[in-house]
């Protein structure tokens, strides 16, 4: 959820940012990202900054729609919870 939430708030983020955000090792984060890519939620882009290879991640249209739906549901739940009063 941290990865998808972060990516929903930007155009793209690099691998290091997501690694610091999640606290995962390189291998573990790569494995998570591979699964998200397989599911069509995340797009992986490779580029060079000078001579250094950088991996950038971005949400696909499907991923963005999915995370937006999730946040809307969460917001609706929160609204419902605030309006709920126990029956006496």
């Amino acid at each position, binding site marked *: 959820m941290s990865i998808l*939430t972060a990516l929903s708030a930007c*155009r793209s*983020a690099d691998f290091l940012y997501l690694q*610091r955000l999640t606290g995962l*090792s390189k291998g573990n984060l790569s494995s998570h990202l591979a699964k998200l890519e397989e599911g069509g939620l995340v797009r992986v882009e490779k580029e060079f900054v000078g001579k250094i290879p950088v991996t950038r991640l971005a949400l696909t249209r499907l991923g963005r729609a999915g995370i937006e739906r999730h946040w809307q549901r969460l917001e609706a739940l929160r609204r419902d919870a605030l309006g709920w009063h126990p029956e006496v």
Partner: protein
Amino acid sequence: MQAGSTARLERIRSMTDNYFFWQGLRLVPMGAALMVVAWRWSAWWPLTGPTSDVVTYAALALAVWGSVVVGRYYRRSFGDVRAMPGAHARRNALKWLIVYPLLVASMVVDGLLKPPLFVTGPVWGAGTLAYWWSTGRGRPHYVVASGILGAFGLLPLFGVFAPGTAGLAPFFAVLGAIYMVGGVLDHLELRRLLRPVVPGGDTSTV
């Protein structure tokens, strides 16, 4: 999902959306430059003539360069985020069309009209609150800073300094200090969310 983890996700969203503004150490050189400007406007400034201008402009140039260097440090150590194109168009428009002109106008009012209150204080305090509100909130020190700047407006009433431009030097000194302290606290908040990479070890879950 627990309330704590939802709050963390909301902070992640705010920080990622406003990543540039949460890179607090960028503000520290700017704060130091503001303090140099305050010093220059004070009675304790030792320089005169063109040297005075050169030193002031050099301090400002150094602050801009320092801020760029700090930006590179953040990219190297915390990673890079590219903002959504046009995501903050409304904020930028409000900033340039309303907030900045008001900040300048408040100083002009103090300089020309010399009202009994130091108008620059509350206007810049409101500007600080707008900055906090529009850059992801979360960092309560800006609410405190806004209160301090607002309260600065009352000081002429207590005879701390005369109405008019006499308040500008102490005001910019306080503003510089707020930039520096606020910047360090922003950085600490960023570090709380972007934890150090542990080689080979996982410290959290996705």
